[in-house]
C-alpha cells in the first residue's frame, strides 16, 4: 500500500511498544471520557435534553479539587466524595431552576438553555480564576508504573479503574434498584410512570443529580493529572456529546463504549497523523458513523 509521505515517515517509527503505549493511554483516557459521556446520556435518556453545560460542570469539579488542595491541603482522593455530592446538588439545582421550565418548549430553546449556562459558567470561571493553567502538584495518586518499555501513569490508571467502577455501579443502580427502575420508567413514558406514582419532577431532578455527580467524580479524578483551566470544559463537553451521539442517544453502555473508542481514536489519531489533528480524527469518526448509521451505534432513535 502506498502511503502519503506524511504517514510514511510516521509508520517507520512505529514499534510495538509505541503502539501498545498509545493503546493503553487511549484506553485509560477513554474510560474517563466514557464516565463523562455516561452522565450526559443518563440525562438525555430521561428527558431528551442534552446538557450542553456538562463539560463546564466537570470543569467546576476540577477547580473544586484544585482549591480544596491549594487552600486546605485536601488531596483529590478525599475531594472525590465532595465533588460527587456538590455536583449532584448542582445538577438538581439546575433542573429545578432552569430545566423544569423548558421541558415542553422548542428544541432550540432547550439547546440554548444549557448552552447559555455553559457559556456563563465558563466565563464565570475565567472571571474568578483567570484563564491560567493550574495543576495539582503532589497528589496522593502520582507516579508511573513501568512494564518493560511501557509506562502507565498511576493517576490515569486509577482514574480509569474508578471510571469503570463508577459505570458498573451506575449500571447496577439503573437496572437493579427501585430508583433506577423508576428512572427507566420515566424515560420510557412519563405519563404512565406518573400513574404508577412516580413523581416525574423528583425523578428528573435525581437523574440530573446523578448525571452531574458522574461528571463530578470524573473531574476530580482528572484533576490528578490534567491541567485545570476554564477552557477544559469545552473540550471535554464536546467529546462527551460526540460520544453520546456516537454510542447512540439513549444507550448508556453505548455511551461508555463510545467514550473508550474516542479515547483510542484520539490517541491513535495523534500518533498516526499529527498531535494537532487528534481531535480532528474524533470529529471525522463521528461524521463517518452517523452518516452510515444515523442513530449512532446503539441508538434507540
Amino acid at each position, binding site marked *: 500500500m502506498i502511503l502519503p509521505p506524511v504517514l510514511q515517515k510516521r509508520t517507520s517509527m512505529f514499534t510495538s511498544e509505541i503502539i501498545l503505549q498509545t493503546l493503553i493511554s487511549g484506553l485509560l483516557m477513554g474510560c474517563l471520557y466514557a464516565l463523562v459521556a455516561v452522565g450526559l446520556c443518563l440525562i438525555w435518556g430521561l428527558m431528551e435534553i442534552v446538557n450542553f453545560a456538562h463539560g463546564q460542570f466537570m470543569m467546576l469539579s476540577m477547580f473544586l479539587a484544585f482549591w480544596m488542595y491549594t487552600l486546605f491541603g485536601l488531596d483529590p482522593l478525599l475531594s472525590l466524595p465532595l465533588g460527587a455530592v456538590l455536583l449532584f446538588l448542582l445538577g438538581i439545582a439546575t433542573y429545578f431552576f432552569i430545566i423544569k421550565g423548558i421541558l415542553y418548549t422548542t428544541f432550540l430553546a432547550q439547546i440554548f438553555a444549557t*448552552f447559555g449556562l455553559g457559556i456563563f459558567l465558563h466565563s464565570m470561571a475565567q472571571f474568578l480564576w483567570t484563564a491560567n493553567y493550574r495543576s495539582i502538584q503532589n497528589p496522593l495518586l502520582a507516579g508511573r508504573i513501568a512494564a518493560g518499555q511501557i509506562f502507565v501513569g498511576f493517576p490515569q490508571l486509577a482514574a480509569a479503574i474508578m471510571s469503570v467502577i463508577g459505570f458498573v455501579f451506575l449500571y447496577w443502580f439503573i437496572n437493579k434498584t427501585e430508583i433506577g427502575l423508576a428512572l427507566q420508567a420515566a424515560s420510557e413514558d412519563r405519563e404512565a410512570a406518573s400513574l404508577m406514582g412516580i413523581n416525574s419532577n423528583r425523578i428528573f431532578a435525581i437523574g440530573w443529580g446523578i448525571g452531574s455527580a458522574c461528571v463530578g467524580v470524573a473531574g476530580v479524578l482528572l484533576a490528578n493529572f490534567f491541567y485545570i483551566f476554564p477552557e477544559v470544559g469545552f473540550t471535554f463537553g464536546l467529546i462527551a456529546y460526540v460520544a453520546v451521539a456516537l454510542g447512540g442517544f439513549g444507550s448508556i453502555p453505548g455511551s461508555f463504549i463510545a467514550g473508550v473508542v474516542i479515547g483510542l481514536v484520539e490517541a491513535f489519531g495523534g500518533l498516526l497523523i499529527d498531535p*494537532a489533528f487528534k481531535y480532528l480524527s474524533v470529529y471525522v469518526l463521528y461524521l463517518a458513523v452517523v452518516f452510515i448509521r444515523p442513530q449512532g451505534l446503539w441508538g434507540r432513535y
Partner: protein
Amino acid sequence: MFAATAVFLLLFPAIFTLPFPQHIMIMIFLYATLAQSWNLIGGYAGQVSLGHAVYFGAGAYTSSLLLMKWGLSPWLGMLAGAGLAAGLSLIIGYPCFRLAGHYFAIATIAIGEIAQISMVNWKGGGGAVGLYLPILDESFTNFEFHSTKVPYYYIALGITAIVFLVTYLIEKSWLGFYFRAIKGDLDASRALGINVPKYKSIALAISAFFTAVAGTFYAQYILFIDPESVLPLMLSILICLVAILGGVASVWGPFLGSVVLVSLSEYTRTYLGGGGKAIDLMIYGGLIVLIARFQPEGLMGMLKKFR
C-alpha cells in the same frame, strides 16, 4: 415605523460623523445579516446549525485568497465565495439532513471544528497566522476604504437590506410556507407533497450564500482574517444567539437581536475594561438562559405581546 427606521439608517453617517458609532452600526449590520441568514435554515426550517461559521470563513477565505493569489476583484470574489459556500452547504446538507435533531446539531459542530482545524494547518491558506489582505488604493472597485468608514457603512446597509428583503419575500412565498411546514412536522410535510431534503437544501444554500457574502465583507473591512476570527465555534453560537434573542422565524428579529447584542458587547467592553472580556460572555450566557427559559420567542415575541 419602518419608514422612520429606514430614513434614520440612511442618514445615520450624516448625523453621527465619527468613525466609532459608524463602526458599531457596521457591526450591527454584520451580525444582523449573519443572524438573518441563519434564520432561514435555523429559524424558519428548524434545522439547528451550530457550525455556520464555516460558511462565513468560506466566503472570507475564498475572496481573500482569490484577491491575493490572482488579483481577482473582491466583488467577484464575493460571488465566488458565496457560490462556493452554497455548494459546500449542499455537500454538507446531503448526509446531514438525514440526521435527527441533536445528531444534526452535533454534526454541524463537528464540521465547523474540522474546518477550523484544517485551516489552521493549511499553510497555503495562511495557517494559524492568517491572511493580511493587501492594502490597496481606496476605491469602490477595490472594496477598500481607509480614510472613512462611510462607504463601508452603506455597503453593509445594502447587504443587510438585500438579505432582509430576500427573507421577507421568502416568508410570503411557498418557500416560506414549506420551510415552516418542515419545522412543524416532517411526516405531514411529506404527505402534502413536500420533498423535504430538497427544501432543507434550498434553505441551507441560500443561508450559506449570504453568510459567505458577510464573510467577504468582513475580510474587506478588517483586512485581516485568521481561523480564530472567522471560523470558531463561538462565532457560530453568537450567530444563533442573535437570531434567538431577536426572535426566530421573524423578519425583524435578527435586527433587534443584533442591536441588543452589539450594544451590550460594546458597553461591557468600554465600561468593564480588561476583565470585561469574561463579563460580557457571562452576560451573553445569562441572557441566553433567560431568553430560552422565559421568552423562547425572543424580543419579537415580547413585542407582539404588547400589541
